[in-house]
C-alpha cells in the first residue's frame, strides 16, 4: 500500500470504528449526512490527487503524518481568553473562540439583540432543528468533485453557528478565533454555519492561530447563507505555525440583491488551501473576493475559487495578489462560470504575482466558462518583477534600492489590503505585511509562541 492508499484506508477504518463517538452529541441532521458524504469521498478516490482542482497541490505530504483525530471534546484546563489575546488594538468585536475545531466551553456570551443566535454547531442542531435542517450541508455539496469537503461532512462534529434574523444589523464584528493547541499531532474537522435573514448585515472576522508547535491539519468547511438584501463582510487572517496545514472551504449562497465581500490574508502557515465557492442564485447579487498571500521558506499557499453566476444581473469581482520568496509555492485557480440564463453578468478576475527568489514558484489558472452571450467577463494574470521605471523614479529621488523595493512591494500588497473595511484591522495587517516583507517577525505582539523557529 502506498502512502495515499493507507491514508484512505485509515479514514475508512476510523469512520467505521469511531462512528458511535463521532455521532455522540450531534443532531440527527448532522449524522444523517455522514454516510452519503463518506461514500462520496470513497467514490471520488479519497484524498484528491492530480484532479483538476488540486492539480498543483500535493496533499500526500500534508496528510501523511501521524495525526490523531480526537472524536470527543476534551475540556481545556486553561482559560483560552488568558492564553490568547488579540493584538489588534482598538478593534472592538464579539470574540468567539474555538479550540482544535470545537466550540470553546469558556466562551462568554456576547451581548446581542435578542433573536441573534451565536452558539456551537452541536447546540444549534439540537435547539433550532428547523433552521438547521434548512441550511446545514445545503451549500457544501456544491463542491461535488472535492473529496475533502465530503470528508469534512462525514467527520465534522462541531464549530460555530451564527444566525442573524431579518432586518438585524450587527454593529460589532464577530471575531471567530480558531486556536490550535495539543500535545500530539492533530487532525480536525471544523464546520461553521452562518445564516443571515433578509436585509441582515454582519461582519465576520476569522483569525487562525496555533498555540503549540505540533503538526496540525485542519480541514474546515464554512457555509454562509445570505437571504435577499443581506450583506456579509468576511475577513480571514491566516497566521499559523509552519507545521500547521489548513484546508478551508467556504461556501456562499447568495439570494436577491445580497452582497458578499471577503478578504483572505495568508500571512503564514505551512500549507494553506482556500476553497471559495460562491453561488449567485438570484438577480442583483454581488460578490467581491480579495486575497493576499506572501509565503516564504517552504510554505505552500493554494487559492481556489469558483464563482457560479446562475441568475442574470449579478456582478463578481475577484482580485488575488501574491509575493513569493525563498522556496515557497503559490497556486491560484479561479473559475468564473456563467450559466446559460445568467445574462447581463459582469465578472472580473485578476491575479498578480511577484517572484522574489530563484526557487519560488507560482502556478496560476484563471478560467472563464461562459454559456451566455450577453455578458462582460474578463480576466488577467501576470507574473513579473517590480517595475524598473518605477524603481528608477524612486531612486532618482534619493531612495535606496532596498527601501524602494520595500515601498513598491508594500504598495503592491496594499492594493488588496485597502479593501479591508475594519480600519484598526487594516492598519494591523498593513503593519504585519510591512514587517513580513522586511523579514522581521510578523507574529502578533503579545504572542509568546516560537512560530518562526
Amino acid at each position, binding site marked *: 500500500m502506498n502512502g495515499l492508499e493507507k491514508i484512505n484506508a485509515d479514514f475508512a477504518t476510523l469512520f467505521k470504528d469511531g462512528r458511535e463517538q463521532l455521532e455522540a452529541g450531534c443532531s440527527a441532521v448532522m449524522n444523517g449526512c455522514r454516510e452519503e458524504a463518506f461514500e462520496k469521498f470513497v467514490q471520488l478516490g479519497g484524498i484528491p490527487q492530480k484532479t483538476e482542482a488540486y492539480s498543483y497541490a500535493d496533499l500526500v505530504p500534508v496528510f501523511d503524518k501521524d495525526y490523531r483525530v480526537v472524536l470527543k471534546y476534551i475540556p481545556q484546563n486553561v482559560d483560552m481568553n488568558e492564553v490568547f489575546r488579540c493584538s489588534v488594538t482598538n478593534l472592538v468585536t464579539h470574540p468567539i473562540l474555538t479550540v482544535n475545531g470545537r466550540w470553546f466551553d469558556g466562551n462568554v456570551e456576547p451581548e446581542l439583540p435578542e433573536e441573534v443566535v451565536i452558539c456551537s454547531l452541536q447546540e444549534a442542531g439540537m435547539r433550532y432543528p428547523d433552521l438547521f435542517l434548512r441550511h446545514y450541508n445545503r451549500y457544501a455539496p456544491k463542491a461535488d468533485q472535492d473529496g475533502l469537503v465530503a470528508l469534512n461532512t462525514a467527520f465534522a462534529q462541531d464549530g460555530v453557528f451564527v444566525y442573524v434574523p431579518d432586518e438585524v444589523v450587527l454593529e460589532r464584528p464577530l471575531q471567530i478565533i480558531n486556536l490550535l493547541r495539543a500535545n500530539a499531532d492533530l487532525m480536525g474537522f471544523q464546520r461553521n454555519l452562518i445564516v443571515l435573514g433578509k436585509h441582515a448585515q454582519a461582519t465576520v472576522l476569522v483569525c487562525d492561530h496555533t498555540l503549540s508547535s505540533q503538526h496540525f491539519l485542519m480541514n474546515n468547511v464554512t457555509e454562509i447563507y445570505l437571504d435577499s438584501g443581506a450583506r456579509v463582510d468576511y475577513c480571514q487572517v491566516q497566521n499559523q505555525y509552519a507545521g500547521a496545514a489548513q484546508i478551508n472551504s467556504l461556501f456562499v449562497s447568495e439570494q436577491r440583491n445580497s452582497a458578499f465581500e471577503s478578504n483572505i490574508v495568508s500571512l503564514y502557515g505551512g500549507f494553506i488551501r482556500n476553497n471559495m465557492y460562491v453561488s449567485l442564485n438570484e438577480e442583483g447579487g454581488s460578490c467581491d473576493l480579495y486575497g493576499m498571500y506572501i509565503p516564504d521558506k517552504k510554505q505552500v499557499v493554494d487559492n481556489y475559487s469558483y464563482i457560479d453566476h446562475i441568475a442574470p444581473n449579478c456582478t463578481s469581482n475577484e482580485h488575488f495578489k501574491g509575493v513569493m520568496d525563498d522556496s515557497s509555492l503559490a497556486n491560484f485557480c479561479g473559475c468564473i462560470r456563467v450559466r446559460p440564463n445568467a445574462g447581463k453578468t459582469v465578472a472580473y478576475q485578476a491575479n498578480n504575482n511577484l*517572484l522574489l*527568489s530563484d526557487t*519560488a514558484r507560482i*502556478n*496560476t489558472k484563471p*478560467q472563464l466558462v461562459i454559456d451566455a452571450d450577453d455578458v*462582460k467577463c474578463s480576466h*488577467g494574470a*501576470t507574473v513579473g518583477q517590480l517595475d524598473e521605471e518605477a524603481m528608477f523614479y524612486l531612486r532618482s529621488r534619493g531612495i535606496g534600492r532596498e527601501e524602494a523595493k520595500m515601498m513598491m512591494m508594500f504598495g503592491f500588497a496594499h492594493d488588496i489590503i485597502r479593501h479591508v473595511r475594519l480600519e484598526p484591522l487594516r492598519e494591523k495587517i498593513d503593519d504585519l505585511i510591512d514587517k513580513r516583507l522586511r523579514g522581521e517577525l510578523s507574529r502578533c505582539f503579545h504572542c509568546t509562541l516560537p512560530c518562526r523557529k
Partner: protein
Amino acid sequence: MNDNIIEEVTGSEYKYGFVTNVETETIAKGLNEEVIRAISAKKEEPEWLLEFRLQAYRKWLTMKMPRWAQLTIPEIDYQDIVYYAAPKQKENKDWEEVDPELKATFDKLGIPLSEQMALSGVAVDAVMDSVSVKTTFKDTLAERGVIFCSFSEAVKNHPDLVRKYLGSVVPYTDNYFAALNSAVFSDGSFVYIPKGVRCPMELSTYFRINAQNTGQFERTLIVADEEAYVSYLEGCTAPMRDENQLHAAIVEIVIEKNAEVKYSTVQNWYPGDKDGKGGIYNFVTKRGICRGENARLIWAQVETGSAITWKYPSTILKGDGSVSEFYSVAVTNNYQQADTGTKMIHIGNNTRSRIVSKGISAGYSSNSYRGKVKVVKGCQNARNYSQCDSLLLGDKCGAHTFPYLEIENPTAQVEHEATTSRIGEDQIFYCNQRGISAEDAVGLIIKGYAGDVLNKMPMEFAVEAQKLLQISLEGSVG
C-alpha cells in the same frame, strides 16, 4: 439584432462535402498487431519502423483516453475503423498518370495538381486517405536541396533523416492519440530545408478524407537546418457523412539555430450537419522545438471545421533567444466543440512567446481556449504575452478560457488577459447609422476581431480563410 439574418447565415452548406468515386484499396477493419504489420508491409517499411509502430501500439494499449478537455466525446470504437485506405493508382507518379478522378477531386477543392495550373509559388503534397497522391514542384525544390515529399517516400529515400527526427519532438509515449498515430500512421509530408536555404516557395499539404469508415492518421515532419526558412501550409476537407470519422495526426517540427518556420493551417474538416450529426473528430498533436539559438516558430491557424477539435500546437523554446508566436481563430457553429490552444515551454534564456487566440462561438457550440505557459527554473528573462478573446454569437453557445501559467523563475514576465463578450448593440447601431446593414456590420466587426490573426496568414491562405470565416458563420449572427 435580426433573427432572420441568423437563420440565413446558419443555413449554408459545407461545400467540400462531395465523395469521389475512386477505387480504393483498404484493409479490414480493426486494430491489432497484424493490422500494423500489414500497414507496414504495404508501405514496404524497414524493420526499425515496424518496431517503432509496435512499441507505440503496446504503449497505447496501456493508456486511457484522456477526459480533461471541455468536450463531450462519445465512445470511440477503435475496432470499427479502417486504418488503411488508398486510392488505387499506378506506381509511376507522373502527372499524366494520376487518376483523372483524383485530379478532378483536387481541382474541385481548388488544389490543382498540375504544375502549370498550380497556384504560383506553392508546392503541394496532396494526401487522400492514407496515401500521398502527388507532390508538385519536387524537382524545382530539389535544385535548392530542399526535400519535400510524402512520408513514405522519405522513409525509402532518406531513411537516416527520418530515423533521426521521427519521434524526437512528439515521442510515441506523449499522449493517447500520439501513441495511436505512431502505431498506425500511414502517410504525410516530409520537409527538410538544408543549411542556409530559404525555401523559394510556400510548401503545402492538402489532406482529404474520402473513403468511408476510415480514419486518417498522417504524420508530418519538418526539419529546418541552421539559417533555413520555410513557410508551410496545411489544409483539410472531408465528405459529408452521417457517421463520425477519426483524424489523429502528428506534426513534428525541428528548428535549428537562426532558422525560421511558419506553419499555417486552415482546418476545414466536415463539421457535421446542423443537428450535430456526423463530422470529423480532429485529435491532433502538433509540436515544434526551437533547438538552436534564435530559432523562430510561428503558428497561424484558422479552425472552422470538425465536429470535435482537440489540438494544441506547442513550442519548446530550448535555444537561447528563440521566439515563438501563436495566432489562432477558432470558429464553432451548430453543435461543434473545440478545445484548442497552445503550449509554450520556455527553457532557453531570453526566449519570447506571444499568443493571440480569438474564439468565435455560435449556435449550440462550445469553444474553449486551453493554453499553458511554462517557464522552467533555469530560464532567465523569458517573456510571454497571451491574449485570448472570445466572441459569443447567440445565447446557446459557450466560450471558455483555461490558461495555465507555471512560472519557476523570478526574471520571467508573463501576462495573460482574456475577455468574453458579444458584439455590442451599440457597435451594430453605429454601423447601421452609416448605412451598413446589420449583417455586413457583423461581418465587418468579425473581420476586425480576427484581423490580428488573419494578417499573419500567408497571402494565399488569408483570402481563403477570410471567406471560410464568412461561410462558417453565415446564419449564426444575431
